[in-house]
């Protein structure tokens, strides 16, 4: 495809030796153009001709093709996503959907911006660079809002843990997330790592970034003020990532397709770190009137979005763009997704000062154009006009589809295949075996193999990080104000019922934030689905969006933004619908945060919430029986809200010493994690059916420990939350009276061995290298 454009601009062919100018396009209306190769449908191409009143030039065609791609235009998802914008207004929301990231008021004049974004397709093609540039891209989105990025999270999904391709993709993805984030100096405070056969060939790499600023420092992406200069700064423009959004992110992989590696960008976190510091210095002295980062669709996106959101007029002299490769054609320059670039709108009187800050940080900055009168975006190449378009038609008025939808034909059978029919463990020995199996499964196992590769300490404000339920970051050292974040997405539930699945994921993220002692404030989401051209996938998508919007309305939370990743399928097999939901919460005082692990012996272990026999989509059914069927657990958002309020009260009063949410793996998983955190066991008594108690995944439940069980029970009763006393912490085992006695050593061995066994144990070489056998200085 890249080759095709090069041919058109400079190589042999009908346009050989001619620059395809606006004037030429008007004279040669019937020239055939490779719109299909660029991912445009014939009716979309016809619409472009209609808008322009002529055929587009090669450069214009390039711009429209990337900006009208699914990835940039949200053309299949837009009609559904409107439900998020239609949610009741929230006092907390300072900037809503439509900007690079939403901005939330967290008190004391602070504003927080956060967003999660996918980089799924690039990470499959080139795991390290795909994941690294996924982090880089979301960090620039946050920076663009005027915020200092303060932390990242990552939500990762791969095919079966023991599949050979997982061994190819996972280590590179983890190293890429770590390599980029570590080098930027951003702590990684949490995330997810899950495995399922449905992600074979379509791994999901979703990265979240959060940033903080003062209210008055919020920046917007718009070009205003005729005569203001357009400055491109950061890295030079190269040939990497050309057509990344249209070729990679908006098409399914097929087995025979050509290698797509040239469409993946290459990251340079050092340049991005300089860009961050330069930008923050530029913001501090108020040198920009508008700013936009260059991500998917590169300059095409930045220029058209800035102009479209502003007064409309902009002129660019494309030959002034600093290049890494001087042979790039104008169309390629417009489409390049070279990383670590930003575009600013600067008043002429401030240009010199702007450039001086960039020089200080060794950041290349170039004036490439200016804001103009009128409403046209024009681009010249060595004095010849190659683009003359209404920018809104490129950026904001792309095609919108109401895709056909159809409930999956297999859904009735799937929902009828109730997990309740599966053989259950009865004896203590059977229960213990199933407990170990769930906890040591790749989804349930210790994630240290991954998280050790991430810096969680940098900047010195990380209060809680993985493996805690939520990441907690201090934002003010004087007042101790801080934020909490969680990212969750159970795709098994969403496969069984996408409406409820999305709500369950929101409920879990909400609960995880509440467990840390924070008040949930706002929601972001990354919606990973198969091809929108398949009616059954489109139905799943629509149901998930409707479910999420309804749940946000009930919980009173705004959706501040998000990202849609479609075409996650190989051939005609889509991934399970995977809505990954992020919830942001605020801590008035992070010193009152509640951790998930047990530290003290002799404390009372209490279960808050009600347990019902709910096993559909459970980790137990999946791990023990390889089963996915039935209905997911019931959603009770009122109970979630009550539980969240109760947790906040318990944390505020200092009544609990730990709190850990129950989710996949149920009580079995939660007890194991809390005990293993600091090696403190417990003696427990389970009333009723121990299997249901241990493995049900009923929602709105949390385990807490306390030295004041009476105080907790009174408060919970007052709130109307059921309390069950489970036992007392202490000892070196999880003992269930009359049933089983699971030594923590055994539990830890099983839990921590899984990922090193699959992906290699770094310990093997530690300390075994004799001194003197390595190169010397």
């Amino acid at each position, binding site marked *: 495809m890249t080759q095709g454009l090069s041919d058109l601009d400079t190589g042999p062919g009908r346009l050989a030796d001619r620059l395809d100018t606006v004037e030429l396009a008007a004279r040669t209306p019937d020239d055939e153009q490779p719109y299909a190769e660029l991912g445009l449908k014939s009716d979309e191409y016809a619409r472009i001709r209609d808008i322009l009143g002529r055929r587009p030039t090669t450069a214009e065609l390039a711009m429209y093709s990337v900006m009208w791609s699914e990835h940039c235009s949200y053309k299949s998802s837009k009609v559904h996503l409107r439900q998020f914008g239609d949610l009741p207004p929230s006092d907390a929301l300072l900037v809503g959907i439509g900007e690079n990231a939403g901005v939330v008021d967290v008190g004391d004049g602070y504003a927080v911006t956060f967003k999660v974004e996918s980089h799924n397709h690039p990470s499959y093609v080139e795991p390290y660079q795909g994941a690294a540039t996924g982090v880089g891209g979301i960090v620039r989105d946050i920076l663009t809002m005027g915020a200092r990025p303060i932390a990242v999270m990552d939500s990762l999904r791969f095919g079966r843990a023991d599949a050979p391709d997982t061994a190819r993709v996972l280590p590179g993805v983890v190293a890429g997330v770590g390599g980029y984030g570590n080098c*930027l100096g951003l702590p990684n405070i949490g995330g997810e790592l899950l495995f399922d056969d449905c992600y074979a060939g379509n791994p999901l790499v979703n990265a979240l970034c959060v940033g903080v600023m003062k209210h008055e420092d919020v920046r917007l992406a718009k070009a205003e003020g005729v005569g203001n200069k357009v400055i491109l700064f950061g890295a030079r423009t190269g040939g990497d990532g050309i057509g990344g959004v249209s070729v990679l992110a908006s098409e399914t992989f097929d087995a025979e397709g050509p290698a797509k590696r040239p469409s993946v960008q290459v990251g340079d976190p050092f340049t991005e770190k300089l860009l961050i510091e330069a930008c923050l210095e530029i913001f501090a002295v108020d040198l920009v009137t508008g700013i936009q980062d260059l991500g998917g669709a590169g300059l095409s996106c930045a220029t058209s979005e800035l102009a479209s959101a502003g007064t409309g007029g902009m002129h660019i002299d494309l030959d002034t763009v600093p290049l890494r490769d001087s042979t790039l054609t104008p169309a390629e320059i417009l489409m390049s997704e070279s990383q670590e670039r930003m575009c600013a709108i600067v008043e002429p009187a401030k240009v010199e000062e702007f450039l001086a800050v960039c020089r200080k940080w060794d950041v290349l900055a170039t004036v490439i154009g200016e804001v103009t009168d009128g409403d046209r975006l024009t681009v010249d190449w060595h004095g010849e006009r190659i683009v003359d378009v209404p920018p809104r038609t490129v950026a904001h008025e792309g095609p919108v589809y109401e895709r056909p939808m159809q409930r999956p034909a297999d859904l009735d059978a799937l929902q009828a295949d109730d997990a309740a029919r599966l053989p259950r463990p009865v004896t203590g020995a059977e229960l213990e075996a199933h407990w170990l199996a769930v906890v040591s499964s790749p989804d349930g196992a210790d994630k240290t193999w991954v998280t050790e*590769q991430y*810096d*969680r300490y940098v900047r*010195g404000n990380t209060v809680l990080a993985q493996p805690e339920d939520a990441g907690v970051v201090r934002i003010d050292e004087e007042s101790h104000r801080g934020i909490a974040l969680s990212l969750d997405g159970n795709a098994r539930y969403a496969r069984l019922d996408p409406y409820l699945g999305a709500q369950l994921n929101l409920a879990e993220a909400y609960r995880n934030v509440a467990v840390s002692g924070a008040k949930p404030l706002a929601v972001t989401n990354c919606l990973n689905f198969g091809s929108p051209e398949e009616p059954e996938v489109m139905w799943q998508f629509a149901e998930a969006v409707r479910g999420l919007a309804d749940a946000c309305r009930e919980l009173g939370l705004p959706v501040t933004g998000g990202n849609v990743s479609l075409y996650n399928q190989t051939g005609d097999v889509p991934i399970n619908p995977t809505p990954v939901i992020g919830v942001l919460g605020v801590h008035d005082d992070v010193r009152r945060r509640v951790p998930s692990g047990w530290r003290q012996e002799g404390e009372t272990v209490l279960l808050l919430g009600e347990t019902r026999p709910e096993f559909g989509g459970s980790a137990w059914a999946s791990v023990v029986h390889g089963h996915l069927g039935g209905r997911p657990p019931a959603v009770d958002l009122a109970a979630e809200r009550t539980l969240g309020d109760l947790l906040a009260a318990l944390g505020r009063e200092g009544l609990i010493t730990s709190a850990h949410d129950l989710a996949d793996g149920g009580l079995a998983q939660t007890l194991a994690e809390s005990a293993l955190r600091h090696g403190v066991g417990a003696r427990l008594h389970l009333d009723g059916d121990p299997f249901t108690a241990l493995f049900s995944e009923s929602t709105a439940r949390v385990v807490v420990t306390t030295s004041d069980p009476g105080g907790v029970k009174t408060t919970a009763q007052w709130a109307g939350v059921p309390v069950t006393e489970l036992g007392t912490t202490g000892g070196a085992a999880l003992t269930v009276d009359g049933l089983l006695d699971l030594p923590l050593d055994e539990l830890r061995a099983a839990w921590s061995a899984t990922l090193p066994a699959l992906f290699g144990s770094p*310990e093997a070489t530690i300390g075994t290298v004799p*001194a003197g056998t*390595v190169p010397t200085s």
Partner: protein
Amino acid sequence: MRIGVLTFPGSLDDVDAARAVRLAGGEPVALWHADHDLKDVDAVVLPGGFSYGDYLRAGAIAARAPLMQDVVDRAKQGLPVLGICNGFQVLCEAGLLPGALTRNSHLHFRNRDQVLQVERADTAWTTDYSEGQRIVIPVKNGEGRYVAADADLDRLEGEGRVVFRYVDGNPNGSSRDIAGVTSEDGRVVGLMPHPEHAVEDLTGPSTDGLGFFTSVLKAVVAA
């Protein structure tokens, strides 16, 4: 007491080092790599990070920064200098400390809470510890494996210039479990682990790192 914290392009833990100085009771002073101005500081911290993106070799380019010439000159006259992680790499590249830091033996970046044994409690940065004391501070690096020629290692051991050793597991394959070393006069100390990340109960695994910064304040007074 003015403690300089030197920022190179790509330095990351400079804010943390400044906070640690402040919590210890000192006055942190921001130093910029491109200036020839040490701003009358009484000691210098070279913080962690990826100066110049670790390009060429970790610390190699930063070691040649303008201000590093001043740091090297003053260090030879006894100015206390602490190099943490990337700062340690810079000190080795600048020739202020012997040896080199290479890629971790297991080839992964590793972040964990690490037990260290204090081997020298009489350097400018360690007087608030006691010899043989065990402390827990975070380690986080991809190129932290300390190496030197056997003869050099023997000499360092003989001269008592190993300041810290890894205990309960060597996180990066460093020779003889060496986590940090000092100059002949005990004024310059470099180590891979991060004491500045262990200065508050709220954010660190311990407050064991604070002793570095309280120690140097005393060393400056004594000098």
